[in-house]
């Protein structure tokens, strides 16, 4: 068995991998931002104390957390054309799926973040005459968010790894790019290895970064 890396060229990377890499990054960023937004809404619903908000939110979160992501991707790919009334591509379907799926996970993170804020902060806000939304927006969420930054980023790294699962519906992400290159050049071993190395380098350096950040953002209490 010998490894031949000579067929790698900038041309190959650009024509096969680059667009997939960009899609992986796009998917990660959109799913993180969208997931945190909807996840925070879900967390507020779960903590609202009103059953007609809390029960559906909890049901949604528990459902998403108990199904494999691949099945969720397949479900959305099956249902989206019916719901929207027209076919959508695998890439668009993947983006919607990831936002919906990650919202459930970010919800649990934001919920524990909000619960980690001491009751005194809530009461102080109320004593200042703030409404519920002012209190949340100005006092609680900024602190909850800051406390949870390391956990949110760790979830984002997991999310980036999970984007490779769009393979199930044939969306063209980084892994797919390497796979297609490997098939076209008859060199699957080298391309799978390269994919593993690149995923590892990205995730490893990001997780090191999170560890540094963790010490920086900790609120002194």
């Amino acid at each position, binding site marked *: 068995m010998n490894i031949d890396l000579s067929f790698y060229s900038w041309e190959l990377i650009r024509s096969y991998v680059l667009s997939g890499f960009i899609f992986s990054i796009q998917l990660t960023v959109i799913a993180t931002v969208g997931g945190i937004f909807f996840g925070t809404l879900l967390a507020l619903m779960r903590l609202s104390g009103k059953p007609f908000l809390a029960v559906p939110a909890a049901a949604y979160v528990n459902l998403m957390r108990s199904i494999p992501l691949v099945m969720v991707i397949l479900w959305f790919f099956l249902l989206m054309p019916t719901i929207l009334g027209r076919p959508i591509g695998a890439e668009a379907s993947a983006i919607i799926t990831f936002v919906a799926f990650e919202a459930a996970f970010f919800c649990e993170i934001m919920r524990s973040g909000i619960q980690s804020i001491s009751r005194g902060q809530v009461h102080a806000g109320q004593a200042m005459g703030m409404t519920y939304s002012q209190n949340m927006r100005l006092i609680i969420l900024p602190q909850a968010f800051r406390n949870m930054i390391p956990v949110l980023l760790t979830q984002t790294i997991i999310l980036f790894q999970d984007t490779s699962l769009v393979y199930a519906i044939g969306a063209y992400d980084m892994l797919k790019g390497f796979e297609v290159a490997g098939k076209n050049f008859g060199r*699957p071993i080298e391309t799978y290895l390269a994919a593993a190395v690149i995923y590892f380098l990205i995730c490893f350096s990001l997780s090191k970064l999170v560890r540094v950040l963790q010490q920086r953002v900790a609120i002194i209490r």
Partner: protein
Amino acid sequence: MSWNWEVFCKSTLEEDFSPVCFGTGGEITYLDWMLSAWGWTMSVSALGLVVAMVLGVLMGTLRTLPPDTLLTRCLATLGNAWVELFRNIPVLVQVFLWYHVLPAFFPVMKGFSSFILVSLALGFFTSSRIAEQVRAGIGALPRGQRFAAMAMGLTTVQSYRYVILPMALRIVIPPLTSESMNIIKNSSVAFAVSVTELTLFAMQAQEETSRGIEIYLGVTALYAISALTVNRVMALIESKTRVPGFIAAPSSGGH
């Protein structure tokens, strides 16, 4: 739209329906196929979990070794490197590595079935997460336990065997419960190397029958049932292995 649950009674070979929903005389229905796929999902998960537990406990323990000698320092580094390696590569990529890349380096693996390779991939991937939990569990023990073992004259191996691990492994049962449920969910990546487990069944049956919603609902329900069963079994193990008065049940509120 209308439901058509009869799809599960349909034969996978011909356009006819079995009255009992199970195939007879060598024919199999979609229900038969789904149940066999469930068996594959559970087998992959079970084998993967055994591999993950053994390697995870071993690596997690190595990471907590006291840095007294060169050997223990090397072993702790090995444990740390192990966790970083298997945690930072997506599980699907790891499955491809086991399936396409490793057999090229180790010819003996060419004889392994994809079932074995996927189980190993899942096991190694999950072992890094279990190692993390085990390390945290050992770290959560009061340091006095380790010192007491040393004062009794136990060697490092003995103090792990008789003092530290028996307590630490009980602490990590709740996180291991969620890892066991995760491995069932993660076993769905086996579709990528043609192990006919639930996800691949869902994809193929959906294509063949065009009754995707019914098929997916059935598969999703089986995943949920599996996860719930594992949850209950682990809760049983947790209550059976509890040391009275030491680690309180979460519901009793500690003491």
